[in-house]
């Protein structure tokens, strides 16, 4: 391409891009020229046209959605998961700039580690007055039970992160250190996967440094701390409601860790165990995403339901690697930031390479004077608060917004409790172009950069997570929890990068061949069982509604054919479906019935309607996201996607139900064909078979046997709902009689939709469990009974009913027995000292 043309086009795209005085712009130098490392990207933007850019933007959004990348934002009403907000344009750093940041991050990680080692160890900094005792003492997450506890290898910081931005003078400045349980590296990786595809050419031409080696180094390093040398690791997550649950599932999968919640773990004699199907399994690496304070209800926050009682005791015993060890938050927060330059000199004998924001701790008279003098260009913060500025939950106040009365109150509070306050000078974040409606617009940006410990020193993830502020000015919010968007961060090395390397694929070391070996936490199996049940129930419900709808005309008047009869039989006694549908059917009112069918399909207020059942599919699948393949997950997303608008007429509804039935079939097919036959699949199939077996007997008893003028239509419908119409037609052509229909629905083991087929399969599954459950005998007895049943006898009064009850009873009994044995790890409770409380 003609270089002149290229730069001319580039100028076009930049024509509207404002230069911001007094701010650092990552893309534009002070003279307005484009920084060289942004060239490849801008050339690409100039080369492609508007529609192409829009196309890529949409592709990025689609991929984010298809991969199920979400971030639950607390601000949202209901706190629902929402798609991860990723700006298509990356944030680009050149190699030199990056080298400065990298060296500074490594130093800060070392410093944080050294400070923690002292605070929880010999406390020399406190004895010598280098650090006022107020700093640990006042920090709400200074965990006294951890004093004197030396983590494995003596390493207090295994994973470190810092938030930083670039000041107007081009100095990268740290806004906050993150040591507690830094989040974001999984999102950074996901961003990279998506954005490097959207801009493959500039990614290659800019020689962007790849990320995977960092994760490998981190994983290898953690293994060196374990006596076994091989991590039997878990990722401890607060659970599916946490805002970053996607990342927990993603990282667990990427790093080969079991995703667990507090209830999945137990501590015996200082060792941590994972509760699995086969019993307790040692876990010697816990990647911790539950904050320290919540990690042990026995010794830390007593009302925490997220933790593991005894985890502190396990930390004391020193046989489990916690990443990070407990209690690191004490080095986070503005007060500590004020002391870091001095601590760096004391502990490392070095000057702090990356400065922090200028901070005045108000615990001394000198600090208070400096703080009040700087008030106009500062924020007043809790000295120990590490919540991002102006994020939800932050109580930071801008100095310039405080009037005389406020300032008087502040000065008095400083006198009384100065140690709890810090005044921090405002740092205007640097700017970078974001894509807004097809145009480049400067937006405030902060980076989160990650480091991991290795025996040879800390290594830094070459890239990170850029967060794009929503507003600008002093109150620019850069917190993901408050709705900031994100960007991929590219380090343009200027040198060609080696072959693509990923943790998920090539690894040099030859592996021992293993089959099985996956030990899912019992909780995961519970969710898989319910995923199977909900998915099957959704299909049955869709087929049933569809069968009724097909028999209702659009203009269904009082005489709506057999539909009310069918609906009455299927929904009336099935009280859990819909009472209104039942009433409409009872009254024989076709129009009302049509409305109810629409509601039963789409109304989320119907407790047992289709929409809620699909929500159950989504919820349980989300809870075991790490155990499902991407294709599997995508098919669940497709199945459970909420419609923008509900169906308004029966034709529309029927079409949607058709689609839904196809999608449930696709999901079932994926499970059957693509899941390894291990415990995950077994429990998913348990759920599916239980639900299908009960469904088959339900349809048989409600629709087959009663000899009246609609008997044939009902039998046809039963076969249709049970997806057995084709088989029946092959065998019996057009003649419908109860005995052969019942045989096909209930007794014929060769029919994969029959009750007998489910029972036979479940009996085999039970045999695969390592221990024998009592219910296995019931299942075998039921199978024998089904095999011995003469179809002709089922047509006698009470015949179908008796058998249906036996099948449903045994199958539900199985569901309960599995729950009792494997999933209900009897609730944990706290006990106090006195009936009501201490007396006195």
């Amino acid at each position, binding site marked *: 391409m003609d270089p002149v043309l290229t730069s001319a086009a580039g100028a076009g795209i930049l024509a509207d891009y404002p230069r911001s005085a007094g701010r650092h712009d990552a893309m534009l130098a002070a003279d307005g020229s484009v920084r060289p490392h942004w060239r490849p990207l801008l050339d690409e933007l100039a080369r492609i046209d508007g529609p192409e850019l829009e196309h890529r933007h949409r592709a990025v959004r689609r991929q984010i959605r298809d991969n199920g990348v979400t971030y639950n934002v607390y601000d949202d009403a209901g706190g629902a998961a929402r798609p991860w907000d990723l700006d298509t344009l990356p944030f680009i750093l050149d190699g030199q700039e990056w080298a400065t940041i990298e060296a500074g991050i490594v130093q800060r990680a070392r410093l944080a580690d050294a400070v923690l080692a002292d605070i929880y160890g010999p406390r020399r900094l*406190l004895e010598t*007055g280098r650090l*006022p*005792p*107020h700093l640990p*003492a*006042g920090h*709400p997450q200074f965990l*006294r*039970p951890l*004093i004197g506890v030396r983590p494995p290898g003596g390493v207090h910081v295994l994973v470190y992160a810092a938030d930083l931005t670039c000041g107007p003078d081009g100095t990268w400045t740290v806004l906050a250190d993150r040591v507690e349980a830094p989040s974001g590296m999984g999102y950074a990786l996901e961003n990279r996967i998506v954005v490097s595809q959207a801009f493959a050419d500039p990614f290659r031409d800019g020689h962007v440094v790849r990320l995977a080696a960092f994760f490998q180094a981190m994983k290898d390093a953690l293994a060196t701390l374990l006596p076994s040398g091989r991590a039997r690791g878990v990722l401890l997550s607060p659970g599916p409601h946490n805002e970053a649950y996607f990342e927990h599932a993603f990282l667990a999968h990427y790093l080969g860790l079991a995703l667990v919640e507090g209830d999945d773990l*137990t501590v*015996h*004699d200082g060792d941590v165990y994972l509760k699995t199907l086969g019993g307790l399994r040692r876990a010697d690496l816990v990647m911790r995403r539950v904050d320290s304070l919540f990690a042990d*209800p*026995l*010794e830390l*926050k*007593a*009302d925490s339901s997220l933790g593991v*009682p*005894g985890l502190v*005791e396990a930390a004391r015993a020193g046989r489990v690697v916690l990443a990070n060890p407990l209690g690191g938050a004490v080095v986070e927060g503005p007060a500590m930031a004020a002391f870091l330059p001095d601590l760096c000199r004391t502990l490392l004998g070095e000057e702090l390479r990356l400065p922090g924001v200028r901070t005045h701790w108000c*615990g*001394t*008279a000198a600090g208070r004077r400096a703080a009040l003098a700087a008030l106009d260009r500062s924020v007043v913060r809790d000295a120990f608060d590490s919540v991002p500025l102006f994020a939800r939950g932050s109580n930071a106040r801008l100095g310039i917004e405080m009037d005389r009365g406020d300032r008087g109150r502040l000065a008095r509070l400083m*006198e*009384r*409790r*100065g*140690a*709890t306050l810090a005044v921090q000078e405002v740092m205007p974040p640097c700017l970078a172009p974001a894509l807004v409606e097809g145009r480049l617009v400067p937006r405030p940006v902060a980076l989160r950069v990650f480091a991991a410990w290795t025996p040879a020193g800390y290594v830094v993830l070459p890239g990170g997570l850029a967060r794009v502020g929503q507003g600008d000015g002093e109150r620019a919010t850069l917190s993901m929890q408050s709705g900031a968007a994100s960007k991929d961060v590219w380090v343009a090395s200027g040198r060609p990068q080696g072959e693509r390397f990923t943790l998920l694929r090539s690894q040099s070391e030859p592996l021992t061949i293993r089959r099985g070996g996956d030990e899912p936490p019992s909780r995961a199996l519970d969710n898989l069982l319910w995923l199977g049940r909900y998915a099957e129930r959704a299909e049955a419900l869709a087929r049933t509604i569809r069968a009724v709808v097909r028999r209702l005309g659009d203009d269904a008047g009082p005489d709506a054919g057999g539909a009310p009869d069918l609906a009455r039989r299927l929904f009336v006694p099935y009280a859990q479906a819909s009472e209104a549908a039942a009433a409409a059917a009872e009254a024989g009112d076709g129009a009302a019935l049509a409305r109810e069918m629409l509601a039963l399909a789409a109304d989320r207020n119907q407790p047992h309607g289709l929409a809620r059942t699909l929500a159950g599919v989504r919820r349980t699948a989300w809870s075991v996201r790490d155990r499902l393949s991407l294709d599997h997950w995508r098919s669940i997303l497709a199945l459970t996607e909420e419609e923008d608008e509900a169906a308004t007429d029966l034709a529309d509804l029927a079409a949607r139900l058709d689609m839904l039935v196809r999608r449930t079939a696709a999901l079932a097919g994926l499970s059957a064909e693509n899941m390894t036959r291990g415990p995950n699949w077994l429990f998913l199939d348990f759920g599916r078979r239980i639900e299908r077996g009960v469904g088959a007997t339900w349809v048989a008893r409600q629709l087959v046997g009663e000899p009246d003028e609609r008997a044939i239509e009902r039998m046809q419908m039963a076969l249709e709902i049970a997806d057995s119409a084709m088989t029946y037609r092959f065998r019996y052509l057009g003649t419908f009689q109860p005995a052969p229909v019942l045989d096909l629905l209930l007794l014929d083991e060769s029919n994969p939709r029959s009750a007998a087929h489910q029972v036979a399969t479940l009996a085999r599954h039970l045999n695969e469990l390592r221990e024998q459950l009592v219910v296995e005998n019931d299942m075998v007895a039921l199978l024998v009974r089904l095999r011995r049943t003469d179809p002709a006898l089922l047509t006698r009064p009470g015949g179908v009913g008796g058998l249906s009850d036996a099948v449903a009873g045994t199958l539900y009994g199985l569901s309960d027995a599995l729950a009792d044995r494997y999933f209900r*790890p*009897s*609730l*944990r*409770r*706290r*006990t*106090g*000292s*006195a*009936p*009501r*409380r*201490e*007396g*006195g």
Partner: protein
Amino acid sequence: MEYRVRHRTTYHYLQPVAQSQHLLHLAPRATPRQTVVGTHIAITPPPTRRTERLDAFGNLAEWVTLEDPHTMLEILAESRVTEAARPPHDAARSVPWEAVRAALEQPDGPDAAEAVEFLFDSPLVQPALDLSAYALASFPPARPVLAGAIDLMGRIHADFRYDTTVTDATTPVDRVFEIRAGVCQDLAHVGIACLRAIGIPARYVSGYLLTMPPPGMPRLVGADASHAWFAAWCPPYGWVDLDPTNDVLPGTGHVTVAWGRDYGDVAPINGVVVGGRDHTIEVGVDVAPWAEASTES
């Protein structure tokens, strides 16, 4: 005075408990005026593991794990302690309270540095209300800190009603302050919150009262259960105990078990059990002069 302290806690569970873990603060610690001759803690059924350690505040703590199913758990702590009279501090000669606060900005010596531990909000004492206005009525400018603390104790005793029915173990200090009522634990928390609000360190003390007072002395409130009070940092005397429930400076009738930032640090028994469903707890506390107690049983 020498006493026998007996503290029995019995749990009955509706269903078997599969595993239980407890953290006990039941063994009295030695203090300048308290000597501990010995403590014996008997646990039935026998635990799988017992580990004794000092906690971060120097209290004697015990970690107990039971891994055999049980429907009953009894913990009986018996101690023999000797109480000396409290030292006769002259409140008027303690340091003016503002000077106490100022001195702690750069604490001189380990005791003052340790007092800083008790200057800040803690899990159960983090009032949203500004209690400094209430506190300052007891602390006019330059008042000696102990005189102010004693005045504050008296005001809490007068302003707050002792009532065992209006709060529970999780009632926040703000709520206690609003309703002006509670039990010893609440009143101690109020005292602590007030002192910390004006920059004076305060800690929570858990202990017991002599069950039957000597002849001619009134029986104190809270004598048949665990008791609690607070202590204020009052240089040059150091920590001074104050019992707002009874408006007294604890003397020979108060037995100290442990101290911390608030009740949560020193709860006599903190436990997590797996299973058990509902449970009932019975608690009995008896503090008697050793001579009487040893003849009676």
